[in-house]
């Protein structure tokens, strides 16, 4: 459904560029694995197949696959894939993606300092807003309720430790 009319040259260049970046990332991953292998101790005792064998094989495998994929984005071009990526690019909203990711990281980082209940109460309306919710008041209510109910249910009834944070001694 995607091939054909919308593969304008400008878009196609960008798609090709990003696909080659993916291939390079895979190659770099293979390289990292292979350099890390030398850090692995060899172990002690009677060892037939040592701890470095599988990491080496998998590192080489990833390296080869990365080069093959690079070929598919250069010499032997995979046109279907490029078309798919072109149509993806046309609709991708990077701002929203980055905001989602940022708020996730902020949520995890604030779990300890603020405590589970408060961090969740903040996170829920924020991520809801980012993902396009318009009913801020409802989201705040839901967030506060979720945070409190989960916190109380998990710590009191189920005995799971969740960080209390600012509410230490209050809840």
């Amino acid at each position, binding site marked *: 459904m995607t091939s054909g009319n919308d593969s304008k040259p400008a878009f196609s260049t960008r798609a090709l560029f990003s696909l080659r970046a993916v291939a390079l990332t895979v190659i770099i991953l293979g390289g990292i694995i292979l350099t890390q292998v030398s850090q692995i101790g060899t*172990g*002690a*005792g*009677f060892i037939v197949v040592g701890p470095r064998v599988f990491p080496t094989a998998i590192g080489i495998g990833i390296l080869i696959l990365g080069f093959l994929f690079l070929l598919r984005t250069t010499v032997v071009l995979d046109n279907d894939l490029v078309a798919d990526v072109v149509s993806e690019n046309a609709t991708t909203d990077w701002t929203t993606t980055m905001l989602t990711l940022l708020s996730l990281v902020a949520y995890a980082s604030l779990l300890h300092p603020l405590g589970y209940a408060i961090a969740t109460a903040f996170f829920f309306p924020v991520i809801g807003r980012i993902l396009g919710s318009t009913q801020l008041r409802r989201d705040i209510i839901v967030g506060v309720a979720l945070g409190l109910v989960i916190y109380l249910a998990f710590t009191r009834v189920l*005995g*799971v*430790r969740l960080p209390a944070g600012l509410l230490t001694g209050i809840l």
Partner: protein
Amino acid sequence: MNRKLNVFLSLALALAFVLAACAPAAGSAVTYPTETINIMAPASPGGGWDGTARAMQPVIASVTGQTVQVYNVSGAGGTVGLAQFVSEAKGNPHELMVGGLVMVGAIQTNKSPVNLTQVTPIALLTAEAEAIVVPADSKYETLQQLVDDFKADPTAISWGGGSAGGTDHILVGLIAKEVGVDPDKINYIAHSGGGEAVAAILSGAVTAGVSGLSEFTDQVEAGTMRLLAVSSEERLAGVDAPTIKEAGVNVALMNWRAVFGAPDLTTEQRDAVVAVIEKMHDSPEWQQALETNGWSDFFKSGDEFDAFLTAEITRIEGVLRDIGLIE
């Protein structure tokens, strides 16, 4: 370094203030416990440390009247849990952690950035003997026969046991050292858990099995495995097997388990926690728990435990170096 020290000092100072504010007017004695006690089992549910923590839970609750919670932080012979305990429990007497021999070894083999000198030793609780078994249809009837073949052709004897560098591996290393087998020829087949090792022994894949005695008791009783020897200093009551020493190899090893307090406890706090654990140990419920779990009582607290721990760390380090697991 300096900055760390500063942070530490200011934390300690802050802690002192808080404690001073909280201290009851009556005097220097610390009232303990004043809130829920948390016990970390630095392993997944079902293992020995988890069992120890869960056995402690109701007994401490009944001798103190406070709620006691157990939580698990599994991984890497307890070093993942230890790292978390050191960073998060600092100065809090209501945080306890179970640990033991395996952790001493794991700290070394994993090059753990934190170690047991950073936490506060409270008390040694239990000890369990290791057992050496063979499948029921094995040709080996005594440990002596097994050791003879081990000396003759070391790599032909495969030893199935728990994690590499753990208690089971250490025992095989000690035996090899004692009978003069090159550590590079120890064919030790590590498994991630006792259960996996039991399956490997029952299937006849490995020549012999090494694990905590309790892992094998039922199998031996049911006649699927033969118990060749136990690793205690003296014969165990109710166990029909010689010690390794009696079988002619001068090796003894007990897998001990202990409880530790948070880093940076004051002497008063440490004494208060030790008092609670002593009360726990003296209760009939704890004695009952020891019996049901088949653990030997190995109680040492305070300075006696400190001395034991220091000696054990040196000994284990030596063995691990001998068998080549640490450089």
